[in-house]
């Protein structure tokens, strides 16, 4: 009804992180039509841009894994994960900082074959970037490289003077360092009464800090 300025509060998160940073959200779900939209609109409703999104089957049969990268504050990401978990077909949503995961992106580069063949420098360059030829044709060659954003980005810059025709990069895929896989968790979900462990609680270890009365 009117323009209010209510949201200027900063809520401090348990770990004290207030600023925006990259978070990787890992979501385990049932394989169901329409779920991608249900998850996507949780972000778009809050005008949050998804930087990268990957969906593929997980190690557990019938369970799909979403890997979503966004740049936000931890408090926002935590709330997003709770909203994602609220979806009926979502089993679990985790969020992690870059330090807590091992992650990679794959990139493909299309370059004119004649230029590469002529210039030995290019070959050295590709070697330096750990790139590998996937297809070699008379007119063009496609290289592939895998790594972090800066690495794939670096090769674009390096190849630009040699007539880079086309470039594409995949979404991030990530493995949580501390994860023990999803098989065990899945067993708990299949029980009628879920196990205690399922309700994670950030306050559990912080009782001393919480009770100051």
């Amino acid at each position, binding site marked *: *009804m*009117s323009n*209010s*300025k*209510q*949201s*200027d*509060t900063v*809520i401090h998160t348990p770990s004290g992180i207030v600023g925006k940073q990259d978070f990787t959200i890992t979501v385990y*779900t*049932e394989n169901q*039509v*329409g779920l991608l*939209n*249900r998850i996507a*609109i949780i972000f778009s*409703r809050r005008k949050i841009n998804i930087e990268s999104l990957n969906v593929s089957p997980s190690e557990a049969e019938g369970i799909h894994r979403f890997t979503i990268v966004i740049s936000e504050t931890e408090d926002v990401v*935590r*709330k997003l994960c*709770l*909203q994602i*978990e*609220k979806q*009926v*077909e*979502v*089993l679990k949503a985790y969020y992690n900082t870059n330090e807590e995961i091992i992650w990679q992106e794959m990139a493909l580069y299309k370059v004119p074959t004649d230029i590469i063949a002529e210039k030995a420098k290019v070959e050295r360059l590709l070697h330096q970037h750990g790139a590998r030829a996937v297809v070699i044709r008379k007119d063009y060659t496609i290289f592939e490289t895998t790594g972090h954003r800066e690495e794939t980005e670096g090769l674009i810059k390096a190849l630009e003077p040699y007539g880079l025709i086309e470039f594409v990069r995949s979404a991030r895929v990530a493995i949580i360092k501390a994860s023990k896989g999803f098989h065990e968790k*899945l067993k708990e*979900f*299949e029980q*009628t009464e*879920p196990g*205690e462990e*399922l*309700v994670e*609680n950030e*306050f*559990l270890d912080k*009782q001393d800090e*919480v*009770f100051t*009365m």
Partner: protein
Amino acid sequence: METLEIIKDQKTEIKEPVSISGSQAVLEAFIAEGVHTIFGYPGGAIMPIYDALYDYNDKLEHILVRHEQGAIHAAQGFARSSGKVGAVFATSGPGATNLVTGLADAMIDSTPVVCVTGQVFAHLLGTDAFQEIDVINITAPVTKWNYQVTDATEIPHILAKAFYIARTGRPGPVLIDITKNAQIQKFDYEGYTKCEHIRSYRPKPIVRKEYVEDAAKLINEAKKPFVIFGQGIILGKAEKEFKAFIEKGGFPAAWTVLGLSAIPTDHPLNVGMLGMHGNYGPNVLTNECDVLIAIGMRFDDRVTGRLDKYAKQAKVIHLDIDPAEVDKNVKSTVPVWGDCKETLPMLTKLIDKKEHTEWLNKFHEFTQKEIDIVINDELNPKTEVMTMGEVIKSLNELTNGDAIIVTDVGQHQMVACRYAKFNQSKSNITSGGLGTMGFGLPAAIGAKLGAPERTIVEIVGDGGFQMTIQELGTIMQYKVDVKIIILNNQFLGMVRQWQQLFNDKRYSFVDIQSPDFVQVAKGYGIAGQTVKDRKDLRSALQEMLEHKGSYLLEVMVGKENNVFPMVPQGCSVSEIRLQ
């Protein structure tokens, strides 16, 4: 009805599948889930289900509304007055899109509703066929769950899932879209099994004893504890447990708009309503209590006012069934996840028996001040024009607080919520979170069908009434006994109030004209009258309540009366204005 009997026999004795259509399977599912009343409107893509319904006339009552929005609001009213799941049928395309407002309303107010919409044949999906619309994606943000059925064999277990999801945990609306081919398709039906577990869905979190203990410790140390509660108490059917809790601890307790009627209005520990137009004491003292115990409520912005000035001095204990609500708006010191039906008795056991007389008196002092400055003038006005409050006051005296009050949205809603008296739970039905004008009339119809033994009084404004006025036709056709009170101030009053207070009285498009409501009602065969003088009010209310069948009473009230107290938007709850 033959079909059903055969199925029952075969299920219990022969246990042999029987061939039925998808449409029949839908109806069998509704019956198995205990549904008797369905609100709906037929159309092309749901015709096979309606054809099957023709044979189920003695098991299922179908209420033909006048607009699909009316169907879903009626189902909401039904669910809210009965505590059961509301049921809706609508066709594809416009039939389904007309449900969206009601779905959103049910979503934000956690009302269990199952909607079945027809859809074009599966082979026509995505072809822009006649009355084809992408219902699943349109309704994704406003449903707890939705699903499109294209094969009849899916129907029994999908509907079982739908009912299970709608009514468990934090309830909500579910929509099942069924393509026409699946409705027609015959398949081997093996009976209906209720859903009791979905591996990816946890209706309620496990209760953690350590948190209950921590909460109890905090409560026992508190000097000025304050309980604020919402609809979670009613949805969790935990009224008794809640009463035991506040009575043992001697806590002053204030309700949100949707928490109204969870305890009787005149309970000695009930200190009134929270929020923008709530009571003076609960709002101001939110910022003075030392432990704030929030139960089954979600800290809506209309309750909290400015968040960074909300209860900053207090330790917050938050009991909720939905993990996503805890710490969403207000950071809790101790979160107590779980069903309050389970957590409240655990907590009651651990808390000390206490009386906080001095603290409670503080609330009473504020109440007295509010009575002196606001309430007296509203309930016993000395002005010539009538106030909304005096209508509610007279109504209270005549119903004794035994009626179910259904309201629409606006000034009359806030006045009704502030002054209506309630003796029993599930007696206040209103559109809280979404603020849907037009909710009242259809919701009142549903409320009556959900609680036929009770008196239903709908309080509505002249604006909102015209949004779903066509449902008078439903009242006429099914002889639903609903008492309608239109509080007519000849304005869209709440917006006008804001324009007066915050936009320099620039009354921009709030001057609404109305038809002769009594004549309109007469056209539908509904009795009624208009009251313009105070001296006629009481007898008119009496006549309305004693009238057999529906009745429309239009009361002309002051054109520019305002609802106070008020927490202006962007202000703290302690900055509440009394005038």
